[in-house]
């Protein structure tokens, strides 16, 4: 039963950590552009993407 003495605080602490992380992320605007964030990972920053010759 003594395991409870540290298991319960550990569970609560981890939960509280998650809660704090969630508050931080909403405040920082992490959810403002969900679609953009998902697509931006695909952009290859190394090469030129806009080719002047290709533009109509």
């Amino acid at each position, binding site marked *: 039963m003594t395991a409870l003495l540290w298991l319960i605080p550990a569970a609560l602490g981890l939960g509280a950590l998650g*809660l704090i992380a*969630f*508050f931080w992320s909403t405040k920082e605007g992490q959810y403002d552009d969900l679609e953009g964030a998902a*697509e931006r*990972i695909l952009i290859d920053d190394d090469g*030129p*993407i*806009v080719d002047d010759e290709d533009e*109509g």
Partner: protein
Amino acid sequence: MAPLDAASPSLDPAAFVRATGAEKRLDLAVQNARCAACIARIEDGVRKLPTIKSVRLNLSTGRLAVSFTGDDALAVSIIQTLDRLGYPAAPYTPDTGEDPRSKEEKRLVRALAVAGFASANVMLLSISVWAGEGEMDIATKTMMHWLSGLIALPAVAYSGWPFFESGWKSLKARAVNMDVPISLAVILACVLSIYETAMGHGAAYFDAAVMLLFFLLIGRFLDVRLRARAGQAARDLAALQATIAHRFEGDGSVKAVPATDIEPGDKLVVPTGERIPVDGRIVAGEGEVDASLVTGETQPLRVEPGAQAWSGMVNLGGPLTLTATAASQDSLLAEIARLVEAGEQSRSRYVRYADRAARAYVPAVFAMAGVTLVGWLAFGGTIHDSLMNAIAVLIITCPCAMALVVPAVQVVATGRLFKDGVLVKSGDALERLATADTVIFDKTGTLTEGRARLINADTLSPDALEAAAQLSRLSRHPLSRAVADTAGDGPVAADFQDVAGGGLMGRVDGRRVKFGSARWLNLPDTEDDAAQEAWLVIDDADPIRFVFADTLRSDATTAVTELADLGLEAELLSGDREAPVAAAAHALGIPHWQSELKPQDKIARIDALKDEGASPLMVGDGVNDAPALAAAHVSVSMGSAAEISRSAADLVIQGDKLTALARAIDVARKAKGRVMENFALANIYNLIAVPLAVFGLVTPLVAAICMSASSIVVMLNALRLTRA
């Protein structure tokens, strides 16, 4: 580039540049951006321009924020660049002030997160108590309960606040809403649990209390987010339709600024063909204006210095100079605003389904709890057991499912309509739309396009049409545009001259051509004044008459038929003169119509219909429709409508697609059906749960299972609407 049209004069994007020190910011709404390649192309393309500091595209909202240090005129090249890349963009002024609704939304998200955290952790402890039933000694059990309480009580105090506040407000107003039994159940569950734990009996409802709050907050959050989204979409629409004003600066130059920046007393010039941006008094220039957005009348109005001009009128003559006046001081808009307010008050008497359910539900629950208490006492129960069971009735019947029934369905229905281009401005708008049985249309700008089209092109010789078109392509006058639209692209006239308030003249294939009003050409007035007209004179030949009219929208007939199929009787109420109204009513097969109505007359007709027991749906767009929109049972305005009409209406159709009306009614009716089903489900749940509670069979475990099961069933049923 999209063709210019009379309703939206080309915007000078430089007017939307906001400067803070050397840094300038421009916000654009970009179309067609969908993928990673779009982000890269847009951001890289704009970044290549000189002096650009940062470019950021928000893909979810389609908004592009640009900051740069160069001249304001760079705004034009930014838009041109985007256009060339295939992403047409429009400048807009973003809201700076924070919307109270989005503030409430954020507060609810935090409450939801706290309730979620608390219910997960309390459940962790509760499950070990339930699993250890019979083995766990009472001391450990009590410790678990105290721990649960330690988590649950602060969480309830924080997350339950929206319900306590609203319940208390309603009690103070001597009414009872759903939040009263919710608050009571949560508070009683907490108090009872503290008492039980302190006494060492071992039945705690902390888990039920926080879980109840968690589910209820989901419903509340959905409800608020729905309203916040709709409000945001409506404000975006307004921001995108911002008009430009040309203001005289102190040094005599003219600068383009957003119309919202104009203050009373500012001197403005309104070029030919542009919309008057703000209300004002004309100080110089005279000519005709198209007032159809203001009065619904298609016949142009003559104005001269000293006359009052209203925002939304289109200048048909030469440039007008006017002094801006404050909107509140003038008689027309003040009167309209007063009528709108009166209409909205009468509408606020509508009782939403949820409140109607609460009215029936709350007394029943309290009565049931009372009967349980008295019953147990009468049959020899101890005071403790009797009280416990009475409170269990309150907790378990607590409208967890009830509070989710309406928001869950409305969020799904509104989301679907949003995809179809219909903005629903409030949840109860859908409820009212489902019960509409009569539809009242405005004519100008609603059933019709609200701008002139050439209607006798078939009877004109190709040579005459081409001659007129060569002049018209050089002019921004709405009638010229109508001619140019009909004739299509082509060459333009030589020696062109635009005579303000008169017409156009020039040289086509060596012939002198004049195109303009009968008065300017010294022609006798025609008897038929129902239509707008212009005359073409080539050299000394006989004048040729061009007739223009405001034509019906291409989908007007379909829309009226669809509404008739849904069982709605149509009526046409217009501020326009008799002939065009009768023609439109005849063409659409609308039997009841009235013309030359003032805003008050439209309200009178709506009130008469209401007295007959009908529920009229008003569809309109003009300033003159706003009071009728507010007074009707439910109302719809076009996306291109006057601002006051858009704000008075319950629903706004983006893209001016009339066929969306039938779709909206269909979805609203389906949503109503789903709400009723959900109420039935919630009642079935109560039929099972209440007897259990009355006979004292409810343990904390039973309460937790019953409440989450009922909420999930209701949610799933609402989601079925996405496919129907």
